[in-house]
């Protein structure tokens, strides 16, 4: 088990997510994580459903999509190695805000929401290491959303 944790931590450290994380925090976090492999095309999160897991992509790519009536699915953001998915799992509501679909075979370290919440509640130093990284992920979502908004605010119609 210890060896397994070390391996997971090593994998995690190779991504930006844990590159600057203190080793002991990385290990304690990895101890409650589960390595998951998804084939291409797998839905790792579904919009509107309860989000039970927070994941960190170790290798692969996930498309975050919104279903638009009459338009179909639109990808508004893709996330790659080191990026987080399922951050809604950290919220009391835990409802996913978009659907995440793997574009390539993807490996992720996944944390069940209850043990993760318990670990962070008991260890503020772990919580304070996790939350800034979650904020980076959420900021990226926000930036992608704003980019879409810019299209809405483009110059108005000209008749000629």
């Amino acid at each position, binding site marked *: 088990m210890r060896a397994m944790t070390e391996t997971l931590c090593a994998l995690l450290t190779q991504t930006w997510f844990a590159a600057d994380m203190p080793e002991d925090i990385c290990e304690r976090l990895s101890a409650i994580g589960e390595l998951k492999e998804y084939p291409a095309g797998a839905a790792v999160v579904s919009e509107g459903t309860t989000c039970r897991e927070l994941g960190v992509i170790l290798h692969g*790519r996930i498309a975050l999509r919104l279903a638009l009536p009459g338009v*179909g699915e639109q*990808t*508004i*953001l893709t996330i790659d190695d*080191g990026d987080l998915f399922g951050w809604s799992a950290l919220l009391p509501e835990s409802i996913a805000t978009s659907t995440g*679909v793997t574009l390539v075979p993807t490996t992720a370290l996944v944390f069940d929401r209850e043990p993760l919440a318990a670990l962070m509640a008991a260890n503020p130093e772990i919580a304070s290491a996790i939350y800034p990284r979650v904020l980076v992920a959420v900021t990226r979502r926000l*930036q*992608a959303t704003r980019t879409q908004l810019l299209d809405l605010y483009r*110059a108005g119609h000209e008749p000629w």
Partner: protein
Amino acid sequence: MVTASARFLPRADLDRLFTALTADGRRVVGPTVVDGSIVHDELASFAELPKGWTAETAPGAYRLQPTGRDRLFDYNVGATSWKRFTHPSIVPLTRGRRDGNQVVVEAVEIDPPKLAFVGVRACEIAALRIQDRAMRAGPLGDADHIARGDAALVVAVECAVAASTCFCTSMGTGPEIDGGADIILSELDEGFVVRTGTDAGADVVDRLGLGPAESLQSDRAARQVGAVRAAIGDPVPAEGLATRLRAALDHPRWAEVADRCLACANCTLVCPTCFCTSVAVASDLDGVEGTTDRTWDSCFSQGFGRVAGDANFRPKVKDRYRQWLTHKFSTWWDQFGSTGCVGCGRCIAWCPVGIDVREELNAIAPIGAPSGPIPWPLSPIEGRAPAPLATVEPAAHVTATVRSVSFETVDTATLELVLDDPALLGSRPGQFVMVELPGFAIPPISISRIRPDGLNLTIRSVGPATAALVNLATGAEVSLRGPLGRGWPIEAAYGRDVVIVAGGIGLAPIRPLIDAILAERPKFGAIRLYLGARTPRDRLFVAEMNALAGRTDLEIEEIVDRAGPEWQGKVGIVTQLFDHAPWDGTRATAFMCGPERMMTATANTLEHRGVTDENCWLTLERNMACGVGTCGHCQLGPFFVCRDGPVFSLAELGSAFGLEGL
């Protein structure tokens, strides 16, 4: 310089001066009373001069008053400045013809009238020089302005009275006249003390056969102008004003004055140094004959800062007032090495709501004001990195033929143009051309490839002019001016890693840079290209970029803002491609082009990755109308984007980059 030996012209003999001035067919323009103001107009004789009149001025008011004496020049400045004659409000620029595929555009021949300006004041001499310097700057200058100025003979008159709105003393432009005029008159009750400043002036005066002025007369003339100086005082202490103003860009007074400012443009149009113009396009009903005129415009009009797609860089009146005031008193120094204000006070008197520029300056940038951060270095033009300008002068109105049109996306096409003009063939990556189809607006277009036999232009259809261009057929002609602007400083990246970031149509000016770098591949370290587009369908040069992806000596990644489920690539903003990348930015020179928001975000991310401001280059989009720095539209702080850019380093721009409303 002014000759020491002053002569005397008795009042009764003044008409002889008129005769001498007009002897070689020269026409005389001078002050005369029209519609309640002293204005400059063509004179049939000196009997039309404003004898016995003066003008009382105050903020927002100008009233003629009788003086009760016979003096002719007992006023200071009137409603119009001499720019009416050196920089007329409407000047024909080109005549073009588009007949089927054939396009011919020719500059209108300049035949300036030979004029004598009579009654030019010290501040106005300064204004003529200042405007002349501005119109001679840049790669081509303004030919019409230069020709008119050169053809004029200046007969100056030293001020004998001071208006309440005068402040030439503060600006260092008067009231004494010690040069810059062909003939200088000082009016006394009995006549005029006459000095000459040039050979041309001496030629005219010699013909009058005047005796010398008595030393008492010269003394009285000197005392008279001395009294004017004393009366004006020093209303706007100018020492350090340029720096004080640029440290006050976020002063609350800008918003306060904007509440009163009508943005009506009167101040700029009566200003004797303001030179901003627009290009007015007209055509016949068949769209065959097209003309362009240069017309007076103003930075106070909303349309002045507008670019394609209706973006506006100075949407608020506050932005426009700040642009005007900081240009006059601060950034003019950067651009032309002098003040842009001569203290004539016209902007004060002719403001319909009486805004007094002296009061605003003393409120916004008073002496002893706490000095804030200076947003950009003083005189950046002097100290900038070696300018990678083309060595050849830009060419005007070169006809080029479309060899092919290929649509890159639904609204963007690449025109392959064939031409044989050596200047255009010598274009540098990053330069642009003004592209003209008679009858249509003339857009600046980045060169997207430099070929031995011509240029490629990649154009996005955002309005009628660009739509007409992307819809040209093979064999059609267009008229070009260029190459214009400063290109990418490729040499600055020799021996270094290269990072290139392009968003949307921004890839067009980047592509010749890629061409040039790959042509000298061994001179560079690692090369990384990051490309962004709105959707997969909006990507440019797709086949070519895919071919680059096959090379082992560079890295290329792309991302789109959004995509359908069929897109397997990355989605998000372009900085996502490298914000966690492992490379060391301190060894890299970066080049970027795209929407301004994208470039702001990219600049921040590159900074975090260690790329220094000196090594971060970008190309800016502004409303370019002339392309050579004489129309004023594309001003950004101390720069004209067309002339000093469009390529800049972040270090050069300082906080002029991304400052709202600048």
